[in-house]
């Protein structure tokens, strides 16, 4: 929701990034204030996941220009784990499988690490078990997933739910959900969307990367951005997603070209 006096959470200015020497992000500008929900849409390969991973601090990407301020501080001065502790959370488009690390052990470790950082008390295994089961209920996830290795052998949709479970535990300031909806069945989409909505407060913000209008029926965006070739080429309200749905991306691109030509 847009609040008139909200403070800025994320300020991206002219962000450029390369991978293996190839420029993928070519000058991104984006401002996210607390309380807001932003949707980023765009064609395959336009750089949405790259943008998300650059914000999370993935070392495969080199930032070659621009600035990003998170709560007024230079985000690039923080290591990935420091960003996570400061409240940046990325739900991966393709969550990583980690065989041999039990999900409950992993979840507790991350939860306690972040809690400690925020000056709060850790939970012991028993307390944590109660706590995490409560969160899993909200996502209608079976507790069986606690005993399995992190994401190992999880179905596509189960992995996505596990990402949102982590988000629910870590309570980030800024959540970036990279195609969390893809791979979810219709019921799961509703459940996960409800979960995300419940986590939304006046003090945090969400960036949804998605290809589908359907998700935006559940999680209503305040802004919709269209990304192409490493830039945000159009920004609008939730209406824009509907227009994209009926006209396709070509419509935005040609409009852009026309504008550029004019």
């Amino acid at each position: 929701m847009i609040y008139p006096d909200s403070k800025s959470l994320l300020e991206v200015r002219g962000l450029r990034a390369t991978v293996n020497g190839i420029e993928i992000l070519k000058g991104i500008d984006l401002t996210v204030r607390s309380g807001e929900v932003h949707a980023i849409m765009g064609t395959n390969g336009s750089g949405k996941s790259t943008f998300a991973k650059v914000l999370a601090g993935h070392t495969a990407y080199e930032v070659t220009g621009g600035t990003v301020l998170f709560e007024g501080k230079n985000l690039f001065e923080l290591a990935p784990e420091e960003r996570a502790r400061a409240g940046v959370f990325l739900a991966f488009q393709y969550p990583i499988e980690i065989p041999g690390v039990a999900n409950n052990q992993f979840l507790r470790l991350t939860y306690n690490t972040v809690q400690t950082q925020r000056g709060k008390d850790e939970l012991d295994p028993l307390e944590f078990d109660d706590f995490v089961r409560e969160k899993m209920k909200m996502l209608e996830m079976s507790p069986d997933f606690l005993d399995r290795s992190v994401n190992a052998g999880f179905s596509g949709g189960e992995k996505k739910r596990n990402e949102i479970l982590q988000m629910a535990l870590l309570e980030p300031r800024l959540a970036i959900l990279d195609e969390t909806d893809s791979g979810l069945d219709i019921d799961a989409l509703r459940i996960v969307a409800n979960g995300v909505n419940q986590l939304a407060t006046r003090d945090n913000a969400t960036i949804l990367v998605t290809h589908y209008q359907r998700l935006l029926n559940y999680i209503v965006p305040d802004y919709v951005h269209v990304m192409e070739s490493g830039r945000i080429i159009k920004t609008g309200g939730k209406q824009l997603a509907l227009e994209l749905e009926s006209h396709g991306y070509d419509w935005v691109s040609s409009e852009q070209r026309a504008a550029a030509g004019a």
Partner: protein
Amino acid sequence: MSVATASGYLESLLQGRAQLPISPLAWLNRLRAEAVERVGALRVPTTHDEDWRFTDISSLTKLPFQPVHAASPLQTAEAERFYLEPATIRLVFVDGMYAPQLSTQVPGAAGDSGIVVTHLSAAVSAHATTLESHLGRHAEFCNNAFTALNTAFLHDGALIIVPRDVAVDMPVHLLFIATQKEAASYPRCLLIAESGSAVTVIEDYVALQQGVYVTNAVTEIALADNAHVNHIRVQRDSGQAFHIADCAVSLARASRYQSTSIALGARISRYNLNVQLAGEGAECAVDGLALITERQLADTHTCIDHIKPHGSSRQLHKCIVDGAAHAVFNGKIMVRPGAQLTDSVQSSRNLLLSGRAHVDTKPQLEIFADDVKCAHGATVGQLDSEEVFYLKSRGLSEMTARNLLTYAFGAEIIERIPVSSLRHRLKQTVLEHTQRN
């Protein structure tokens, strides 16, 4: 190192035999004498020997290791920390010598079943015929200088006999404690699982303190029809020690052998495991984990020999190598012409944690039957950077992320140990190990 001095070295080691008591069993004296003769004919292997290509043990020959003859007066308080909970049937050997004050008797309930867990020299009269048909019959010493040496010193050791159809619930813990520097010990174990029996045995090598010594161990395991043996071997010798061991296992029809061997200690260790699937439908699972650092070398040579039809073997060997350590794995799978319908899977997975760490892994398949299923593979890699990033993106530090992944890599093997207290202890060891770095 010249061959002449090397063979002279082996003979110098034999001097310690002078104090060995003569056995009342004529065949045992003969066996020892044959072994002495073989020691005379063999030499310390060098890296020119194919089987020792990567493992240079010339540093061993710099010290005249001799067996200890006076039992160390080790007290319970010092040995206790190596005991396993809950109760086990425990035999303790200190510097190779049986320590009755630290060992336990087979408890009442298990005792009624007729299970024998004792030290060899106490068993010579009661079990002479059983001993004669097994002792020295499985672990071949003809071409193995170290096994020959061990046999030349054969006097005491652990003996386990599980009678027909008896399943022993309580694990047997064979604990070998090294206490003295420059000592040589020659541990010997014989496990006989009669038909339909089941037992879990933990062979555990530990050190009271850091020091240079040599453990030269030989274990023989015979499984009769339908027997089931779970054999766990933990080598946590002193980081300066030499550990050389040979284990020979023979499986009769439809028997099942599960082995988990963990190598953590020793400056140089070498473990030979030979498993013969000599009966139809025999089954084995052979897993291993070497976790080494600094300048350690851990060499594991296994041979799984399929002799009869319908056998199956599954092997997963893992090495976690840090510092300038060096791991060697040579896994031979032999499928003889008579072993049709063999099903065999072997996998060697290796994790290098530093730029100076090194691994040599070599699967070796020799298949002489046509209707078989054999799969094998080997990987050598570092920690997966995507996995590390994923963990960091959840707030874990680089070090915690790396430790967790390293631990997970090793835990897969440790998870297979059926004794929870040992599993727990080993996990702790792996965590401490990874946290050091």
